[in-house]
Structures are given as C-alpha cells and as structure tokens.
C-alpha cells in the first residue's frame, strides 16, 4: 500500500513497509523523473528516446535498439548488437540531481538482463559520460572521469555489486547478489541526506557516508554484450526523485 510523509516540506509517497522505496513526491522543491510508457523516440534505429542521451557502440552490421516495450508492465527495452562490447550507454538529459547534505534522493529501477553471465550491466546515478563502461579490450568501469553511485555486473561474472566512484576512483564495492536472468529485480539507491544506501529487492546491501560524489548526477544505464550474441535489458520502471 502507498503511504505518505513530509520531508523538507514536500509530500513523499512511499511503499508501506519500505520507507526507502519512494513512489512519487509533490512539492516546489521536488526534482523528479519517472519513466512513462510511450517515450517519444527518434524515427530511425536505434530509435533514441528524445529525453535520454543515448550513445551506441556497434562495430559491425546490425543495430543496437532502445524502444518502448511491447510487453505489459514494462516501459523500455534495450537490445545490444551481436558482438562483444556492443551496447548502449543511456542517461537522462541534464544533471538535475546531486549528493547535497540534508537533501535526500531516491533512485530505483526494476529490470531484467537476458544473460546473467555474458553481459555487462550498470544502473544508477552518474555524471554525464558517454562511456561509463569500457567499449573494448576489457570489461568494467571506464574509471577515468566516472563519478556516481550504481550497481555493476561485469561480463563473465554473475555477481552484481554496489559501487561508488568519486573523481574516477572507486570508493566502495560490495557484493549485492548473484544475478539471474529469469526474473525482474529492483535496484535502489537511497540518500537520506547524510548516508547513501544500496538496496536489492528491498534488502539493504551496503551503505556509504564518506567520499560521496560531489558532481551533479543523472539516472544512468549501460548494457553491453559479453560475447558475440545480442543481450536484452527489459525495464519495468525507473525513477529518480530528490527533495531540495
């Protein structure tokens, strides 16, 4: 059931039994973006949604795509091309969110990757950067200039980790769970104004109160193939809300 509470004079709706899962918020100091069905897109492949900055990596024939889902309960489907490292780096335009003392925010995404092992996946809040994950030679975070708070699953591993980066340097890594490709999972990052918490399916994974990002951030996704076969990321919902 949905409950509500007042935070910094804004009205925040949250899930009863899980106060760190924000549903929506109303207030003059609220900055938010909730992905909605029917996102407007450009006409040609990869059909980039107009409210997202989409950077495609594809070396051969074929095409990565990012399209509104044709499945009930989902909003977006990202499909990589069929060679290793091919994929999409997707970020909400602008950088409207920031770790700022006393100004809580929430990021959440419910999604499913089609291959638990042979894929790269990053979801969370990052600074704008067209290649959050490496595009050749090795799998993992492009450390240089990456700043943010996110979940990461690297190719060849099935463990998804909570990660924190500050000015290109990893400041936190913690195993969250073993990824599976048969069900949707909910990845959430909640900042209470002092400490950042990572949650997987509603369970606390880890937290971080020092060395937090100082730059402006935006909701971010990066998905890549870990082998010569296309991978699919299905997104049921994604939202980011901050009370300034």
């Amino acid at each position, binding site marked *: 059931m949905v409950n509500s509470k007042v935070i910094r004079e804004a009205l925040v709706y949250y899930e009863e039994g899980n106060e760190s899962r924000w549903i929506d918020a*109303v207030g003059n100091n609220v900055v938010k973006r909730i992905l909605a069905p029917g996102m*407007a897109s450009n006409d040609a492949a990869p059909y980039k949604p*107009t*409210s997202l900055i989409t950077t495609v990596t594809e070396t051969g024939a074929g095409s990565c795509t990012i399209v509104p889902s044709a499945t009930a309960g989902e909003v977006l489907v990202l499909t990589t091309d069929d060679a290793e490292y091919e994929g999409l780096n997707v970020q909400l*335009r*602008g950088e409207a969110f920031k770790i700022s003392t006393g100004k809580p925010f929430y990021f959440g995404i419910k999604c499913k990757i089609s291959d638990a092992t042979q894929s790269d996946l990053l979801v969370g809040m990052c600074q*704008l950067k067209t290649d959050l994950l490496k595009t050749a030679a090795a799998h993992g975070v492009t450390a240089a200039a990456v700043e943010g708070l996110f979940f990461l699953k690297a190719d060849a591993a099935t463990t998804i980790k909570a990660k924190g980066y500050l000015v290109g340097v990893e400041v936190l890594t913690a195993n969250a769970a073993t990824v599976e490709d048969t069900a949707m999972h909910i990845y959430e990052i909640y900042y209470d104004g002092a400490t950042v918490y990572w949650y997987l399916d509603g369970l606390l994974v880890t937290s971080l109160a020092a060395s937090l990002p100082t730059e402006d951030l935006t909701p971010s996704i990066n998905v890549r193939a870990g082998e010569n076969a296309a991978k699919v990321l299905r997104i049921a919902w994604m939202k980011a809300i*901050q009370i300034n």
Partner: protein
Amino acid sequence: MVNSKWIREALVFYDGDNQARWLDALGNNVVKYELETGTPVDDTTGDPTRFVTTVVEAGAGDSLTINAEAAGEKILITDAANEFDGVCLTLRGEAFKVTAGTPFYFGIKIKPSRTDADFLIGVGETLTAYLAAAAHTVIAAALEGAFFGVNTTAAVKALVYKDNALSSTADAATALTVTAAHIYEILWDGEYLNFYYDGTLVTQTKTTLPDGDLTPFLHVRNGSANVTTFTVSWMRCIQIN
C-alpha cells in the same frame, strides 16, 4: 509544507504557505503540463520537442536551449551575441483558457544572467514571436494572453492583452536582478486574474480578459550585444476544467 484541497472535484496540491502556488493536481478534469527533468529534444536540431521553438540569431553564433547540467535546474537558454538575439519557446497546442469558474495556474522560476535582458513569459495564444524583431517592445498584433514582461532595464510588468490590445498593466518588480532566480506566477481563480512575484500579489484584474485558447510560452532575448543566459528551475501550468 504541501497541502491539498478540492477544486471542482479535483485534488489540488499547493504550497501550505501560499494557496496561490499550485504544485500539482489530480482529477479527470485536470489539464496540466510540467517542464520535465530530462526535457526531450530533437536528435538533429537539439530543440525541445514539446515546444514550437523559434530562434533569432542575427550574426555568428547560436541561440540554444539545452537541458541544464546543474542540480535542481531544468533548462538553460543561451542567446547568441547580438542585440535582439534570443529564443521563443511555445508549448505545443493551446490547452488552457480563461473561462469563468475553471481556474488555472501558471508558474515559472527563472534567472537571467544580465539585467538588460528582454523577456515575456506567461500564457498566450501561439505565436513564433511575442517581442518585436528590432525593438524592445511586444508585438501587439495577434497578441492575447496574460504574462510578465520586461524590456532592457525597465521594471518587470504584469500584462494582460486581449484582441491585440493591452487591457491591464502593473509594475511587478523593479528592474531585473541576476543574483537569484525569481518566481513569476499567474492564478486565474475563475473570476480574477492574479499576478504574483516571488509569492507577493502584484495586481489582479477581472475585466477585458483574454478569451482565446492559451499555452505557456517564454520569449527571452538579449537587450544588448552581449550573450545572456536564462536558467529555468521549473515551469508548470495546471487548469481545472
């Protein structure tokens, strides 16, 4: 704090300290628009796709509208470097109207970078330009709506136009300041058009009101041959029909 009340069977959320500042509304009879975080833009032109965008740039350089890359801000408009260069953004469609008994709210928080800027912001009939091409005045022809306007260093005014003619004017503030964003709001309560500057009532009028269909717009320009930026933190328009 956020409060809520019923208006014409719709649930309206408002600022608990300011009933004229509507935050959101729910209801089958609600028409609303809020400038989005991650405002969609055309992949080729870079123009916001929900707006009719008209750019004026007389010489070299570009007048641009982009998503602001700063926390808490939505869009950043940067005019090119010549006097009268600027951008006119008009929300597509004309979904709002001054109709007796069906209130609406328009609000915007905006900050210019120079005090000698021109702007006209509010709700009006769709035009590709609200300000004259080579003079610091409004284009009266075809102008209809309720808005705030300033030309160069003059005082910011609350303005009402009907059938191409000025029907109400009042000073809203002294000349523009660039040290902080200000909030400009128009509340049609179903009987009076009320204008607010930073939450303070400036003027109200109930006669010779616009009767055309209206839409939120902002037309911002340089008042001199200097680049001016305009940062919009938020903009929304809500009507209860």
